[in-house]
């Protein structure tokens, strides 16, 4: 029962959405539209559920004094303050904005910037000419890196054109191949889910 009922719902919903895309049948088109509206509702509930789950996990960490529980305290306090402010005084409230602008934005930007330093270090350590493939990768990478910044234009006027050619021809052709394969794979996987051949997402059996 735990698998059969969700399986039937999934089949009906999947069938309606697919038929809606290809055919103009008013009843199915309207049903499909309603289903898409429900998705936003379910997604909002899922976000709330995710938040509640996060809060529960970290509250438990604090109660049981688990490893690095101090971080959980920070999370729980900030979570509570942000949620209370957001709900009671709206996200336009200046305290809410203060938290977002002075905690969320700098932390997010810092983490992203740190990744650039790590990438620079990783490039230095891994881009080595060990064989033909790595030599090709290195040469292409350097050409695109130079061609995409103004320094490349200073070295030679054809650098940007060469980098663009590599992106337009070699990159696009390869990306298209990957996209086609992924799309076909996705259609097959979706069909398996819709017709009930793939049931692992329902979780453990009865």
């Amino acid at each position, binding site marked *: 029962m735990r698998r059969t009922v969700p399986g039937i719902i999934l089949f009906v919903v999947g069938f309606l959405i697919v038929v809606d895309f290809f055919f103009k049948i008013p009843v199915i088109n309207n049903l499909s*539209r309603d289903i898409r509206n429900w998705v936003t509702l379910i997604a909002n509930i899922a976000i709330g559920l995710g938040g509640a789950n996060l809060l529960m996990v970290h509250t438990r960490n604090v109660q049981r004094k688990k490893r690095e529980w101090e971080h959980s305290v920070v999370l729980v306090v900030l979570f509570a303050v942000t949620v209370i402010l957001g709900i009671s005084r709206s996200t336009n409230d200046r305290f809410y904005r203060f938290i977002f602008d002075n905690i969320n934005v700098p932390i997010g930007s810092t983490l992203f910037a740190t990744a650039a330093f790590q990438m620079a270090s990783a490039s230095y350590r891994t881009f080595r000419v060990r064989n033909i493939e790595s030599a090709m990768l290195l040469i292409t990478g350097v050409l695109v890196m130079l061609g995409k910044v103004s320094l490349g234009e*200073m070295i030679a006027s054809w650098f940007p054109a060469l980098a663009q050619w590599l992106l337009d021809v070699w990159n696009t052709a390869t990306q298209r191949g990957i996209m086609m394969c992924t799309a076909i794979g996705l259609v097959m996987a979706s069909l398996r889910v819709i017709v009930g051949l793939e049931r692992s997402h329902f979780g453990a059996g009865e």
Partner: protein
Amino acid sequence: MRSLEKLQAIDRRILYLLLALAVAIPLYKPIGLPFTVGAEARDSFNYVEQNIKPGDLVLMSFDMSTGSLPELEPVAIAVMAHLAKKGASIIGIATAPDGPMLAWQIWRPFEKELPYGERFVNLGFLAGGESGLAAFLENPYAVFRQDIRGNLAQNIPMLKGFKDVKDLKMMVSINTGPTGGCSVAQWVRIGFTTHKKAVWIGLNAVMAPGSMPYYRSGQLKGYVAGTRGAGEYEMLLKRPGLAIAGMDAQAMAHALIILFIFLGNIGMFAVKRAKGQRGGVKP
């Protein structure tokens, strides 16, 4: 020879320090390296220039996270400035949770050109990814009853003429990628394939190669990637901003990384030679 061998194991802290300097110095004192405008930025600019008329409704989705703000903010500002100049009205949504707050930050300098409720509205976060986007485009007021300020959406003056996707002239997504909200592929599927609307994307440079096929096939009408793309757009708009200021820093950082890669390889060949192995490219 020993000193050459050391080149493949330079302390990463030295690299970090040099990289920080390579970025900070040009930002503090710009060098003014010349750059030309590429075809992508020019086509993206021309599309807005030639197709957007005063009063047109443009959907602008802030599908971005705080992490990508430094790279995407110049793109968002440039396109918003262009749309403001062309007289378009902008309906702001976000398929990423940070988006609605970042939309305020980007809109704030345009408060006079795009008065709230008349030429700009921030409807807030749209949950549900691709399905949520599809639902919004077909029946916007079933998804957003209110804007982020709590105004009833249907009472907002600029939304009077907005019934569904058919009333939109263009869709713009400032896109961090699938982790931040609807991906480029999802915008193409819903915006272009399903509704035959012009989709214009501003994205992180790292996502550019993966999204290029959509642009080459004409499924994207605009495609502005990273600081370079935003800098080119600012140049076309004759409105120098954050991106042009960052171009020198980006060029210096790239040059430094290439230099270090080069040094690392010299070090590797030096070690090989020292060990009596044959250096160079092996088949």
